């Protein structure tokens, strides 16, 4: 019998074109390469300059998401005027995909959306695959049991030209979340608590594998939320072993195997989970049953506290980290020891590849149904994909948001990185379901509190940072 292996090791081994040896990296085959407009132009230029073809356009998939407008009144013609640079980038992606025969979900295509939303939604990302994209949140696709990680533009070029990457084998890190979540606590709270515990560099050099009862109990979209933010814990990838929840999710999706191929795939996928007795390089445990809704107070995703808690006092911060801690609080205009609950806010953003899927919108709509957003508050709800948008419109969720006084937008990255004009004004506070609260991430001078869709919706009603459990009870 072969030795016990982790899920990561199994995927890694089956994609080795050549193994690592004598200081040379392994050559890893990539099953699916996702491409978007922002990190690909220079890679395509390099290909053209070197006279190279795209090796496997059939294993490549492109979409437009980062700089696309989400204001329904902005069409392609208006975009050319409003944002000539962004629109040139979209044109260039279209031309590149055309030239190299890469399938592209362009503006107006029903399959278009945020790259990390549409991959699983289309059934393109599957258990056991290697998936890369020029985007750090590629870790999202680990939720289906794929080894998925972000790469830079040079590497985008490598994969386009060779369908391979030069890689050193990362270490494995089991993040075990046991117990049952309390009411009002969701996947986003798990991952914010994990990052707060491990630190934002805690996973550097590692691949997380999330295990334990609380993870198994999540639906696929919750698992995507967790894996999505692996990178905020420093890990390039985060994995969850595929199980019946995964298979039920994938079955019947447009790009998932069907018929006999489905049966064969299932048999293979069932062999992927980590073997009993396999050893991880590191392990961390989190008690899921003691988790509370989480919210960030600082300028990185690790600076998070339970919503009923308070920002740490200076003394609680290690001396060498105090200057950075103070800098973050200065930027946020907050004080050590301060409570966040009740803090007035200006904007609520529900969206991004972390929390813009149907179940995220349904959770937010569940809170907002029959209620109104607070006076003077701007609330943006941005679905992750065109498909999510259509489903939410069909099922009446969109109407709930509109009736409550929120803006219902077109699919895209939007205010998550504020490239498309959706942004905070300097000094504004937002409760946001996205993944990064870095200085200026949501607009220069903007201040972000990261939280779950439930917390965001509860805060939308009150216009303040709000504990959703108070609304639920």
């Amino acid at each position, binding site marked *: 019998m072969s030795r016990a292996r982790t899920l990561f090791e199994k995927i890694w081994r089956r994609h080795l074109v050549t193994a690592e040896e004598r200081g040379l990296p392994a050559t890893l085959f990539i099953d699916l390469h996702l491409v978007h407009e922002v990190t690909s132009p220079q890679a395509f230029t390099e290909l053209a300059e070197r006279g190279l073809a795209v090796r496997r356009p059939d294993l490549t998939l492109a979409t437009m998401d980062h700089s696309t407008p989400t204001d329904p009144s902005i069409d392609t013609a208006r975009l050319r005027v409003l944002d000539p640079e962004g629109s040139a980038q979209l044109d260039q992606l279209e031309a590149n995909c055309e030239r190299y025969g890469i399938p592209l979900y362009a503006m107006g295509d029903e399959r278009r959306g945020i790259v990390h939303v549409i991959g699983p939604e289309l059934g393109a990302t599957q258990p056991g695959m290697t998936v890369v994209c020029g985007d750090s949140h590629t870790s999202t696709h680990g939720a289906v049991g794929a080894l998925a990680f972000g790469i*830079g533009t040079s590497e985008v070029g490598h994969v386009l030209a060779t369908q391979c990457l030069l890689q050193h084998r990362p270490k494995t890190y089991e993040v075990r979340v046991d117990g049952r979540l309390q009411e009002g606590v969701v996947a986003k709270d798990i991952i914010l608590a994990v990052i707060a515990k491990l630190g934002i560099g805690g996973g550097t050099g590692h691949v997380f594998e999330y295990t334990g009862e609380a993870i198994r109990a999540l639906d696929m979209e919750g698992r995507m939320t967790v894996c999505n933010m692996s990178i905020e814990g420093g890990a390039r990838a985060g994995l969850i072993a595929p199980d019946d929840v995964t298979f039920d999710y994938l079955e019947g999706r447009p790009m998932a195997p069907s018929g006999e191929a489905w049966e*064969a795939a299932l048999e293979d996928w069932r062999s992927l989970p980590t073997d009993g007795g396999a050893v991880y390089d590191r392990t961390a445990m989190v008690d899921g049953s003691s988790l509370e809704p989480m919210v960030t107070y600082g300028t990185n995703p690790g600076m998070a506290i339970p919503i009923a808690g308070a920002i740490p006092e200076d003394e609680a911060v290690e001396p060498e980290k105090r200057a950075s801690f103070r800098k973050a609080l200065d930027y946020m205009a907050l004080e050590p020891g301060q409570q966040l609950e009740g803090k007035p806010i200006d904007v609520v953003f529900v969206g991004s590849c972390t929390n813009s899927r149907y179940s995220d919108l349904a959770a937010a709509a569940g809170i907002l149904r029959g209620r109104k957003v607070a006076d003077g508050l701007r609330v943006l709800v941005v679905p992750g994909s065109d498909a999510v948008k259509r489903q939410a419109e069909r099922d009446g969720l969109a109407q709930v948001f509109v009736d409550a006084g929120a803006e219902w937008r077109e699919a895209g990255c939007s205010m998550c990185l504020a490239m498309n004009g959706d942004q905070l004004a300097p000094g504004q506070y937002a409760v946001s379901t996205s993944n990064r609260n870095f200085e200026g*991430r949501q607009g220069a001078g903007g201040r972000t509190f990261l939280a779950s869709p439930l917390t965001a919706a509860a805060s939308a009603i009150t216009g303040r940072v709000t504990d959703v459990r108070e609304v639920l009870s």
Partner: protein
Amino acid sequence: MSKSFTRYTGTMAPLPIQNIDTDQIIPASYLKVTDRSGLASGLFSRWRYLDGDPEGEPISDFVLNRAEHGEARILLAGDNFGCGSSREHAPWALVGYGFRAVISTSFADIFRSNALKNGLLIVPVAEDVSASLFDAVAADPATEVTIDLKARTLSLPDGGETNFEVDPFARRCLLDGTDQLGYLLNQAPAIRAFEAANAARLDTRSG
């Protein structure tokens, strides 16, 4: 843009902040470029200029705006440098500005990989070394260090020397100018064999 590195001696620009993310190195508004140029003016623009606007007023106490550090081509930064977004625009901006190397106690994985592909050397050092370098620069901004990639050493202001780790393959590429894409392209036979051996699986997935 030179993608090689052998040895460099020079002064350091100190940025004693932890977890400097790539959104700070180069904000998203600069990501609309379709080439690699023009990013230097956006480097740290939110910390460097009033309202983050390169046309506007420089913020005088930001390290890159201080005369004594104006010539520095080595960035001395706090722990976990380059976290966040995978944007290769970050090393492009640093290199475009003129930086040759970054010294820190640790680096985020994707940034490290991106930097080394662009001739920007990543020099990881121990905490005490980092602290002594920050002290030395504070005492005398003209303090110089030498980074020797061949020997994998960093000379210290006190006359000592410390070794640093660097991925052997990246080191080789930087020293002799090996082109990583060329190296991968040379593996075409092995890639073809892999594709043939996995044809059924790969075809299923493309359907």
